[in-house]
């Protein structure tokens, strides 16, 4: 096992991502996208530059045009994206899309799709959830074999970047009943195919998600074996959740840093509010909690890179803890800013508004704590 520290290369990637995102995709940029009601929800130019930096290929092996830097490397980018509230298709495409194709694609698919993701010419979206709360087993969307392909019917929601993706990766039932793990298949569907209806949903963080309806839509093909998609999906979701945990770490840390700064500046009763012990203790407690998050996040990312047996439990550990602490950090952030914290003008509330969807996506604290318990035999 590696030590719980970054390698020199990973540290360099973190520094580069930090500089880039601070400059090109800071909080002000999210405000611009929101206030202009941007149709895409992220800047294509900024995404192109991220691609040029090699970020889209972080999880893609060098043979297929990526950098193969791995999950720990990608986690550094997500943490910085969390700090800056940077919007990009990094999760939908470079994590979920790349992981799915890499794990389940045949040689031809890997060649075509991984290369396209790494060079920025393909945006993908994962269409998995059907219930309001994450439940990847609950699949009622059906795919029926017809001719040499499949026809898909059903409805998916919380499809991140669904409205701009070129291709959708859809979990659908080719056999079995709702909640059976056997019989779930992953299919590639062109977003512009007949019978695919995509409704963009504006979320509280003003980032992208969509509700996607399939009405006799023809799939382009299977990704992986028929009926064996669930095992792949679980691993894809683990990859996604580890990155979301890293993003939550960034959100918590940035919200905390800004709050500590405010405690040092704001004066009431003739002194800085940071001199009140009631607030000092809570800040110190939050500091301790964030330290714990750092540890669980890096451990989960390393487990993914090492393909360790306990990866699922470590990912749930990270996502649960990061969700809990990000919720606390963003709540404390608003509270300690007083009236200022409630205003749209001040940034601190935006961290709270980004944290909640990230917590909820692919399972919140409750989901992952329960999964952690199950994986540990209780």
């Amino acid at each position, binding site marked *: 096992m590696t030590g719980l520290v970054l390698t020199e290369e990973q540290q360099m990637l973190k520094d580069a991502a930090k500089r880039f995102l601070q400059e090109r995709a800071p909080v002000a940029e999210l405000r611009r996208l929101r206030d202009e009601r941007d149709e895409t929800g992220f800047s294509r130019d900024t995404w192109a530059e991220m691609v040029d930096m090699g970020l889209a290929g972080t999880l893609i092996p060098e043979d297929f045009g990526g950098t193969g830097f791995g999950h720990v490397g990608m986690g550094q980018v997500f943490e910085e994206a969390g700090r800056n509230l940077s919007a990009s298709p990094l999760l939908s495409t470079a994590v979920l899309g790349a992981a799915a194709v890499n794990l389940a694609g045949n040689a031809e698919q890997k060649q075509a799709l991984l290369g396209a993701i790494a060079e920025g010419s393909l945006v993908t979206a994962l269409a998995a*959830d059907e*219930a*309001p*709360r*994450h439940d990847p087993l609950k699949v009622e969307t059906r795919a029926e074999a017809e001719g040499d392909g499949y026809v898909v019917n059903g409805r998916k*929601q*919380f499809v991140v970047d669904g409205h701009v993706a070129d291709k959708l990766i859809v979990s659908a039932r080719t056999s079995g009943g709702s909640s059976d793990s056997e019989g779930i298949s992953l299919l590639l569907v062109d977003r512009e195919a007949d019978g695919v209806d995509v409704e963009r*949903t*504006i*979320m*509280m*963080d*003003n980032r992208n*998600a969509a509700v996607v309806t399939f009405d006799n839509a023809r799939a382009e093909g299977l990704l992986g074996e028929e009926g064996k998609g669930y095992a792949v999906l679980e691993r894809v979701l683990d990859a996604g959740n580890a990155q979301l945990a890293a993003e939550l770490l960034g959100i918590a840390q940035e919200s905390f840093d800004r709050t500590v700064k405010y405690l040092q500046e704001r*004066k*009431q*009763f*003739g002194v800085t*509010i940071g001199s*009140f012990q*009631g*607030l000092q203790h809570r800040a110190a407690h939050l500091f301790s909690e964030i330290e714990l998050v750092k540890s669980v996040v890096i451990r989960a990312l390393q487990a993914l890179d090492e393909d360790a047996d306990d990866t699922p439990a470590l990912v749930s550990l990270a996502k649960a803890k990061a969700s809990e602490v990000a*919720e606390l950090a963003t*709540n404390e952030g*608003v*509270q300690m800013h*007083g*009236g200022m*914290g*409630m*205003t*749209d*003008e001040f940034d601190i*509330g*935006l961290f*709270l*508004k980004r944290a*909640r*969807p990230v917590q*909820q996506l692919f399972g*919140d604290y*409750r*989901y992952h*704590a*329960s999964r952690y318990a199950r994986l540990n035999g209780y």
Partner: protein
Amino acid sequence: MTDLEQFRQETRAWLEENCPRSMRTPVLSAEDQCWGGRNFKFQSEDQRLWLERMAERGWTAPDWPTEYGGGGLSKEQVKVLREEMDRINARPPLHSFGIWMIGPAILKFGSEKLKQQHLPPIVRGEIRWCQGYSEPGAGSDLAGLQTKAVDQGDHFIVNGQKIWTSYADKADWMFCLVRTNPDVKKQLGISLVLFDMETPGVTTRPIKLISGSSPFCETFLEDVRVEKDQVVGEVDQGWTIAKYLLTHERAMIGGFGRTAAGEKTLSEQAVECLGLEDGRLADDMFRAELARWDIDAKAFELTNERVTDEAKSGQGVGAASAMLKYYGTELNKRRQEMIVAMNGFDGLVFEGEQWDQGAVPRSMLRSKGNSIEGGTSEIQLNVIARNILGLV
């Protein structure tokens, strides 16, 4: 039959006859609330009628004396009225800072002229009030306020800036804390004054909240003329009155999280979102969390009732208001976070008709202000520690 039982029967019959059907549905949105005032647009004829009928009996302010338009009811009768209104899910006929805040202060400290002038229009919902306490430099340290009132013989000239003034852009009058003496200990040079928002020199600028709405404002006061007879209590004695008024405000905010009459309880919502399996909430984690919240909420409700029962008729709940405000608002924040989480994806969508334009997440975001407005949770804890526990 005791007098109280008779009162109950009469009240029940009167409500049955006079509360319009559409006013027996839960208040779910801001539009459902009746705030009254010069510029208020009633949502419906029923809403107008309901206010008018209740105001005529003084039941918008049931415990105020009848000579000022109130209902003149005893504490026990007020409780019966509330129970009977809850029984049929009757909406509050009026939401009013006048009734909740400035009215009780005028009743206790105001001159006879102020009582005659201001209380009846409050009861009738004709004048809407806003609270000009906080300033950019004076939030938790309210007594540090800088808005200046200079004595001009029969009137004051007021200059300064207020902030976070809820509904200042919709209100008709402001009750405002001003500094009338800069040369004494800060608490001793403050006065509580009343003025019409249409007085020259008063301007407001709405501030947008994280929930997306703009209920509060910056208020600028530039050479605003305030008549001397509009001072509540004595000049320079405003701090005592301000604190008295705050106890009323706190008790009110502490009640924000209470399930409105006819509204679905948190557990009913949970069952709807998550389903039951063998009579148990289908999600174990939620079930434990919900039960814990439910127990706290019920205990809090009983505490509210006990504290009210213990208080003398016509008296506020005093120091206990800090405890009620603190606990009630923290409870409500927990409840709102759970509602968002149990709704999953649907609880995070911010726009769109199918999602009620984001009512669920917006309401959660708004609830974060409950532990800030009317004095933060930290300030309530300080009050408890210092004033109740004597820890200094």
